[in-house]
């Protein structure tokens, strides 16, 4: 008993997500450029970059785990994407709930770090350290925001969260969840790796951190991973707080809204150091998060 429709849908969504992810990356660059009064690259520039990387004549490797890391990251991102209900496509979302998806969205980071660590580069090492500390720092407010949401809607299923919102209004219209939304949006900045929390790659500081040793097809895989991750995370955000979407166009508009908030914040803030980020996350977002969960109890 093979559900061909589901498989076709999954393949379609995967292609769409990859493509749109690259477009989102392009939008990010374009918007940043316009904010700084530049013209900026065309929207499909990241796609061209990736294809160029994939076409390199030679790539280097530091061993099996070095190769496996990016593959694992991309694989886990694809798996995460397929468990998220995307607009009217439910895909495999009945098989995994919010906690599973939230975890799966973090797994790619382990893949990237695994590969980066095995290169033995000190910048990679530093990047890994920063990545994990960012994760440690943001996890508490992130968890609190998710808990507030689940407590309010009373379910862990993403599709049910969407349908509840379609009946009772978006999450952000509930005062307590508005607080959770603020927390989640701050954390989201770190999830996307944008300023002020682009501590992991930190281009000017530690030369791209974990990605420093990657070139050629490895970098292409990581770019693709980033694109899909961007799509998956913006969708996740939309589902949790913006009422989900009933078709791809609505979803696109909401994703764009989410993305633009992040871009605007990112383009005016300088980077935090890692200990500042930790202290920041454990102060205001955590306090707001605790208020939010207590209000939803």
């Amino acid at each position, binding site marked *: 008993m093979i559900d061909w429709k589901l498989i076709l849908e999954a393949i379609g969504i995967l292609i769409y997500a990859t493509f749109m992810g690259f477009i989102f990356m392009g939008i990010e660059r374009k918007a940043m450029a316009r904010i700084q009064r530049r013209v900026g690259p065309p929207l499909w520039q990241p796609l061209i970059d990736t294809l160029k990387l994939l076409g390199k004549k030679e790539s280097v490797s*530091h061993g099996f785990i070095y190769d496996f890391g990016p593959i694992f990251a991309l694989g*886990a991102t694809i798996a995460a994407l397929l468990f998220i209900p995307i607009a009217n496509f439910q895909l495999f979302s009945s098989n995994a709930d919010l906690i599973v998806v939230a975890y799966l969205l973090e797994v790619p980071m382990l893949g990237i770090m695994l590969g980066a660590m095995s290169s033995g580069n000190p910048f990679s090492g530093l990047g890994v350290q920063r990545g994990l*500390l960012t994760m440690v720092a943001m996890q508490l407010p992130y968890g609190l925001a998710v808990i507030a949401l689940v407590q309010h809607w009373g379910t862990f299923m993403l599709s049910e969260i969407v349908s509840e919102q379609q009946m009772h209004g978006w999450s952000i219209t509930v005062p307590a969840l508005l607080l959770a939304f603020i927390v989640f949006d701050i954390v989201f900045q770190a999830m996307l790796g944008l300023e002020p929390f682009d501590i992991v790659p930190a281009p000017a500081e530690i030369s791209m951190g974990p990605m420093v040793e990657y070139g050629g097809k490895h970098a292409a*895989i990581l770019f693709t991973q980033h694109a899909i991750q961007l799509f998956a995370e913006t969708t996740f955000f939309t589902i949790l707080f913006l009422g989900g979407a009933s078709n791809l166009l609505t979803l696109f508009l909401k994703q764009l809204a989410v993305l633009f908030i992040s871009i605007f914040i990112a383009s005016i803030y300088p980077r935090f150091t890692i200990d500042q980020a930790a202290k920041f996350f454990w102060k205001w977002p955590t306090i707001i998060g605790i208020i939010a969960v207590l209000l939803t109890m």
Partner: protein
Amino acid sequence: MSFIPADYVIPLLLFVPAVSGVLAWAINVKGIRELLGLIGGITPLAVIALAYNTVLNGPINYTLDARVFTLTFHLSTLTWYFAAVAALVASAMVFGMVSTSGSGYDWMFTLMSVTGVLGVFVANDFIAFFLFWELMTFASFMMVLKRNRHASLKYFVLSIIGAYSMILAIAMIYAKTGALDFAGVRQGMYLLTATHRISNAYVDTIYVLFLVAFGVKAGVWPLHVWAPDAYSETDQSYTTFFSGALSKAGVYGFLLLYLLIGVSLYQAIGTFHGHIGFAYIMAWLGAITVVVASFLAVLQEDIRKLFAYSSIGQVGYIILAFGLGTGLGFAGGLFHVLSHAVFKGLFWLVTAAIILRTGKTEFKDLGGLAEKMPYTFAMALIAVLSLAGIPPMAGFASKWLIYEAAISAHMPLVAGAIFLGSALAFAYVVRFLYAVWFGQRPSDLEDVQEAPLPLLVGMTILAIPNIVFGIAPGLVANYINKIFETDIVGGNYYKLTTPSGTYNALTVTLLLIVGLAIAGLVYLYGARARKIPVTDTYQSGNPVTNEFNLTIRKNFYLPLKEALGSWLKVSFDRFYERLANLFEDFGDWLREGFYNGNVQSYAWYLAIILLVLALWGVL
């Protein structure tokens, strides 16, 4: 159909390890010793496996008449589960011991603690429970004593405080109910509570005493201080059992609280914002343990210390889950008992292999071992994935249940602690991966070899359940449903469902494989990769030679240490050391003050006593 007559199950379970241990010590000939050890370690697993059907049909009881007391044992669905976890870990541990230990002494106490732990799990009255509890403490103490006196004494003193708190609590229960067997205690306490013949303060005291008793063994904050020293200063193969199974005795104790005096505790402590009061305290103790121990694990510079703190943190999850007081909480906690035992046991065997082959324990001396010990590395990776809670590993399934349970039980802040704890778990396992397996290899590790075969076998024994129960978490969940005789966790072999969520491990696995296949195809499409050495790397455009140490091995998480700053100044370890010093000084003062060698003062003591007696009216 059962292969062993029910009457023989419990004696075989309890006596085979102890007897073969003593024989191994007495004979102490290389070869025979190891054989006896293997027999002693594997028999419980075989017996437990064969007793499975019998236990499902009804509990197995066994009575041992020891003249003064009658010891009763009871293998029910619940105790079978705990005993099975312990037996599984024990069987992996003995394989590790074959490689790492060469003395009859080690075998005797190792197997004695196996008997102790199994005895604690199957005991059905407080006499047997306490006897085996002490046996287990003593045997593990002797294992630590051989390596490090200070660590062992710290462990022993805290264990003794725990054990005598327990005996006090048992005495208090006995004084009121007159019963020592579990059924009698349960009934007696229930009756006393129902008829209000027991004061709340009395029950509260029993509760605190039991909390201390079980808290010490489980390593609950703030009684965890013995664990980092004791876990690290012993044979690391033994720690597999020590942290994997022995700490579960404490956890089992917390469960006994519910079973035996739960009603009285509920009556005495009441509820707090809709939560069961006494359980709420346990949940918070667990949450604090998770956070504190995980933070400390992140900052360690020694493999053994790192995993010791990690063990404390993971047991904190179990206590937390039991503290939720809901069916889902118990299910999550019980599942985590199994998954913690298998992944942490695996970690300790990996550590044993590293220490055996390199002789080093600190991160600063290690690195680049993945190429030298590929199989051990693969096993370490499985353990890492399981501990960090990466689907589809056993560690994820159990953590998932605990998450769902904590949020559904409306304990958001406790659930927040798990979120933080699991991020920290991620951080410390990656630290372990980075410092031990990757990067440049120090030149003195060039001739390191793969771990010996018995250790590899032990690791494999523990790696299999990590994967099998990860992909088919329903196997465990179904059994847990049988323990409680209701369907707490729904679903089938591959799928777990709770009232509000679902996790299909098989789909996750399959989609992960599909994802990896797609990513692999992209990888294969690209140009062929050329392998380059570690030193051929980016160093701001500078050439790199082997003399440079490019791997960050020390103080990896320095920024976190700085961010925590003042919190780290508070240490329970130092507090206890200071307390111990105070007592020591007090003892000195007493001795020097009274036994001063002055005949005159002894005459005065006599005079004072006579005076007291005269005033009392005796003379």
